[in-house]
């Protein structure tokens, strides 16, 4: 265990593009590595992806481990897992971070089992106890407003998956230099049990993750009909619509719209939080939005703790007023620019 050294970040690439969360993790990993005074390394697998190693270094890594192989063209647990394990066993990192995306969680879970080590899921805060060289991975727990710090004392590497959009990437610095370590892997397509037949991307509707404005409604909207006000407000601005888990479970809106720990993490320019209390699992999914506007009839609702502007009042009264005044002002504004 003594010999394990260095902070690693699994760099997820899809079709030759690095996922944002991987760059965010390089930012977070940089801080941990500096505190521990060890190198920060990225790990990337794929087919023809060597050119991405510079990007990883520009975003904060000192080293990048690369495995290129035609069998790695598409993500598959069995092949990617094998490569990651091979690297971890050969170079023994002490901390290993993954983005909490479908593929990131998938590979991390398999790797943790084979390396027989601990894996903390969906972390939202990372720190390190320098003396004990312990990763402190914190995440919301249970239903209440509470965080739990998970430790992995006796096993290495200490692993965690981290929610997208909660850590900050470093600005790209193309003057940074680093070491590229290329590894070979013995993989044969005939030995693969799994085949990817087709990948279908839904490009028609930009996900909530890309929306500049999001209007999110909670249980306080009363019922499915009351929730229509959320759609109406979103419509006048061309905004995305979100819901809390309670609203999704009530069936007022589909799963794809859930924001929070078990839904999407979003960072729009403007986030409306209407008739929702602001439970920790919700906050971790939206609190990094630039401007947060909260409407709630309970002045003590936790959502006011993160909001830029708060209105204490009844959503059924305020939202129609907002829609009306917005329409009027927008029309006037529009005329002015035309004149």
């Amino acid at each position: 265990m003594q010999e394990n050294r260095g902070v690693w970040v699994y760099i997820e690439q899809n079709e030759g593009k690095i996922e944002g969360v991987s760059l965010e993790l390089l930012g977070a990993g940089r801080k941990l590595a500096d505190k521990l005074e060890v190198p920060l390394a990225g790990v990337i697998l794929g087919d023809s992806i060597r050119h991405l190693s510079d990007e990883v270094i520009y975003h904060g890594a000192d080293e990048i481990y690369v495995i290129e192989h035609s069998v790695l063209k598409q993500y598959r647990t069995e092949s990617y897992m094998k490569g990651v394990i091979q690297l971890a066993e050969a170079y023994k990192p002490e901390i290993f971070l993954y983005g909490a995306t479908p593929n990131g969680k998938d590979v991390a879970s398999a790797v943790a089992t084979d390396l027989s080590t601990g894996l903390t899921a969906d972390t939202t805060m990372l720190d390190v106890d320098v003396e004990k060289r312990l990763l402190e991975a914190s995440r919301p727990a249970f239903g209440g407003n509470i965080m739990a710090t998970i430790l992995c004392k006796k096993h290495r590497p200490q692993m965690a998956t981290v929610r997208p959009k909660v850590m900050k990437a470093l600005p790209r610095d193309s003057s940074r230099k680093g070491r590229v370590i290329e590894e070979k892997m013995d993989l044969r397509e005939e030995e693969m049990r799994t085949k990817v037949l087709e990948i279908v991307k839904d490009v028609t509707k930009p996900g909530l993750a890309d929306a500049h404005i999001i209007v999110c409604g909670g249980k306080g909207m009363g019922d499915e009909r009351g929730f229509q006000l959320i759609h109406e407000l979103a419509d006048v601005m061309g905004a995305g619509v979100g819901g809390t888990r309670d609203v999704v479970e009530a069936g007022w809106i589909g799963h794809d719209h859930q924001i929070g720990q078990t839904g999407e993490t979003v960072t729009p320019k403007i986030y409306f939080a209407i008739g929702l209390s602001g439970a920790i699992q919700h906050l971790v999914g939206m609190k990094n939005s630039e401007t947060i506007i909260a409407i709630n009839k309970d002045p003590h609702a936790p959502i006011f703790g993160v909001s830029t502007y708060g209105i204490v009042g009844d959503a059924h009264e305020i939202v129609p007023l907002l829609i009306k005044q917005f329409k009027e002002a927008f029309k006037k504004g529009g005329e002015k620019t035309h004149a």
Partner: protein
Amino acid sequence: MHIVVCVKQVPDTKIIKINPKTNTLDRRSAPAILNPYDAHAVQAAVKVKEEYGGLISVLSMGPPQAVEIIKKSVEIGADGGYLITDRAFAGADTLATSYALFKALDRISKDKPIDLIICGKHAIDGDTGQVGPGIARRLDIPPITNVIEISDIDLKIRKVRVKRKIINGYERIETGLPCLLTVEKEINPIEYSPLPNMIRAARYQPVIWAVSDLDEVDRTQLGLKGSPTIVGKMFTPPKPEGGHVLEGTPSEQAGQIVEVLLKNKELFSVN
């Protein structure tokens, strides 16, 4: 075709309460339920059985009361179930849980070989989603996570096709049987349980095993002892500052928000 669904008893986190003084769970506040994702997993197995025939077993590790969620699974349509319960399992994290379930699956498959294992996407008390892939690794069978559709099962060439959710879309995958799938809720709605199932469930008693009933168990890999992760501390997240609460009549407050919005006109995707 033998399908095993792993089901977990969880506190209903929607109504769970935390004691603010001790930062611990107030268990009385939380009735135990079948993990919602696992209900969908059982329902998915029922759908597969309707089309291809076969036998559905459920497997759970938990306290003796977890018998209730096995009965619930029978209501949905499982044929039977196994509960592994023992003090030695207590305090297990995902690594130790997947080890214990793996040992139980090993025992089950000796009587009735397993073709397909289905787990929920995650358990709502811990939200990790790591147990399913962990079991698959230990059995050395392919794990496929985030599954939203199961189709084209071919027992002769031992293959199955699934749709798997990925960022902004899905992929279609073909893999060999046996394999382990973890399923999203979208895979199917929960249907009303037919009356005969309800009647059967009421009387049903699952097979109950202790550690000593399983073969060649390495006890150091069980429960708290076998768990690399521990909860270090619990804390309330640092209270953010928060902004200012607006004043004035509702109409004036709405007006102030509209002003903020109009400063950001470039964001609106309407004309």
